[in-house]
């Protein structure tokens, strides 16, 4: 569910940001006023989406990762940044980062990307008050990505680089949404999003987990609003999805020979697709800019005739702009296969 308040705040942030920079403040996605630090060289990411957003814009400023990256993921990132240490995350009660450690690291800015609900706004205010370090809360949803880049660019003094990435996000979203929009909702393929080794966990309507899917196709579980939930195979047989998108390698392998799934249309038609996930997931998590390339991937799966673009070229372009590495053809093949 897109919070209207957050959307308006995000839009106004875009309008205010250029002027605000001179007044030394930026309005973040939650409508909070964040002072622009005099000089930014080190930024603490509050969670994985923030780490990715920051890495794409200014990798050298990233102090560390909320969770250490695995070695095979570092093949698709700048190695010296990818191997930076694990610093935990700040998520309210479940903090894995100690605030004293955060202070000891002396970041110039704390960046959070994600929900702008009251919980996270109050958390941001509290941490900013406790540490006197500016804390910016930005939006990781597709509609907010461009503005998040512009706000971050203003905060860390990189407006030109930020504008390039913001433009890329807008230029990618516009044709994708534009080509899908004329298709009547009832004509769009029914997509089931399968998580977990059994494939029985799915994202309900409006959940951030299925934002990619709901932008392009019909989420079969979309009638009920919510987050993640478990469903039964019988319910999936009733929905009878045309396409199944999964992030679980185990499920993608076993579903082909599982007799209880055999009569699902997507399985019969061999349309079960394993999402690429290196270095970051393409359709779901973390909910950050990493999902932009996943939009092209899913669009080509759902509407091959409307999206003739070469996915390999798009992947190479995206990885070199956002992840600062140019993957080889073999590496791209490996990424697209979605396997470990």
């Amino acid at each position, binding site marked *: 569910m897109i919070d209207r308040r957050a959307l308006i705040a995000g839009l106004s942030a875009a309008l205010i940001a250029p002027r605000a920079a001179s007044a030394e403040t930026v309005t973040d996605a939650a409508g909070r006023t964040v002072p622009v630090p005099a000089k930014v060289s080190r930024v603490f990411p509050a969670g*994985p989406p923030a780490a990715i957003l920051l890495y794409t814009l200014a990798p050298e400023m990233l102090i560390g990762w909320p*969770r250490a990256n695995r070695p095979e993921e570092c093949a698709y990132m700048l190695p010296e940044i990818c191997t930076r240490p694990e610093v935990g995350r700040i*998520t309210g009660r*479940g903090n*894995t980062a100690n605030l004293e450690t955060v202070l000891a690291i002396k970041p110039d800015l704390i960046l959070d990307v994600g929900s702008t609900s009251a919980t996270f706004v109050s958390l941001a205010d509290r941490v900013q008050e406790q540490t006197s370090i500016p804390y910016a809360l930005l939006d990781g949803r597709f509609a907010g990505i461009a503005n998040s880049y512009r706000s971050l660019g203003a905060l860390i003094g990189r407006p030109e680089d930020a504008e390039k990435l913001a433009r890329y996000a807008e230029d990618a979203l516009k044709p994708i949404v534009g080509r899908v929009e004329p298709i009547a909702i009832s004509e769009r393929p029914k997509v089931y999003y399968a*998580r*977990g*080794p*059994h494939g*029985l*966990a799915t994202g*309900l309507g409006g959940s951030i987990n299925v934002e990619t899917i709901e932008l392009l196709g019909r989420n079969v*579980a979309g*009638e*009920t609003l*919510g987050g*993640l*939930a*478990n*469903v*039964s*195979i*019988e*319910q999936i*047989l*009733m929905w*009878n999805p045309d396409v199944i998108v999964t*992030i679980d390698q*185990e499920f993608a392998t*076993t579903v082909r020979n*599982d*007799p*209880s799934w*055999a*009569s699902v249309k997507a399985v019969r038609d061999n349309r079960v697709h394993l999402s690429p996930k290196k270095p970051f*997931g393409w359709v*779901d*998590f*973390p909910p950050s800019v990493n999902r932009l390339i996943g939009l092209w991937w899913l669009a080509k799966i759902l509407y091959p005739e409307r999206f003739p673009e070469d996915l390999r070229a798009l992947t190479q372009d995206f990885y070199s702009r956002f992840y600062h590495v140019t993957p080889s053809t073999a590496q791209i093949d490996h990424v697209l296969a979605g396997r470990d």
Partner: protein
Amino acid sequence: MYLRAGIDSLPRMSLDSISLARSAVPGFAIAVAVLIAGLLLALTVGRYPVSLGDLLSVLYAKAAGHRADVAPAVESVIWQVRGPRVLAAMLVGTALAVAGTAFQGLFRNPLVSPDILGASSGAALGAVVGIYLSLSVFAIQAVAFLGGLVAVGVVYVIGASVRSRDPILVLVLTGVVVGSLFGAGVGLVKYLADPYNQLPAMTFWLLGSLSATGVSDLLPLFGPVAAGAAVLVALRWRMNVMSLPEEEARALGVATGPLRIAIVAAATLVTSASVATAGIIGWVGLVVPHLARSLVGPDFARLLPAAAILGGGYLLLIDTLARTMAQVEIPLGILTAVIGTPFFIWLLASVQKNWS
């Protein structure tokens, strides 16, 4: 000889067996009726419509050895999805009810449930570790099963090595302590888990569900449950002795130590197997023994089989609710608590005279 006579004379000694014999028949009839009603309902309702006619023609076609004249999806629902799930619900319900009944007698306490010795916490830790290590489904279930056995093994070894005049109390206390230690382990693994992918999987698992049950899950569930339940049913006469105070039981010539090990091992086997398949489902092992006791009385010779039948029917009905109420599955652990709590309070208030 002496031992035999002591046990055989026991029901007459301690219980009013004549009045029980009279009241037990309708009690069993009710338990069987619940099971049959549950079975019919469970097989014919669900998110995917299957009519009674479809069901009968598929069953008939299977018996006659030809293909039924129904949509392939209907056949797959009956044989691959709903059928295995219905069987698993019955097995898990039976397992938890039998284990709960045995433990309530063994510990001489009406508030005991099958997880008192840490079987559920151990299985939970095994499962979350399995999910954390991204193991396959089968391996996760195997680790959960082993986790349950290990937890109870640890509890038993510690309990047995502490010298005390009340070994039962020591065992229960050790179970509580070790259970909470394993619970802390679960918390630690959840804390370390990937919040986007593994954590939801762990949460779903811990809430308990039969939604993923397939044909291949039935054998690993049936084996341990059948073995454990058979041992408990075979020992049901002696359980009457075990519910007497320790000294009295010894005086009757029953070797309480070995018997206790056998009961604990059998109950742990069935509990671990059901938790490994279905996740953590509370309340069934606590409520069903009381319900069965109100139907057939406290004599284990009747109580245990009645609890087995009733437990199967009870969980079958609850699982049917869990999969039909909404498009989304309702976790079993939540439903059993929501239904079990008021039910248990009512039971406490109305039939307390039956616990003796």
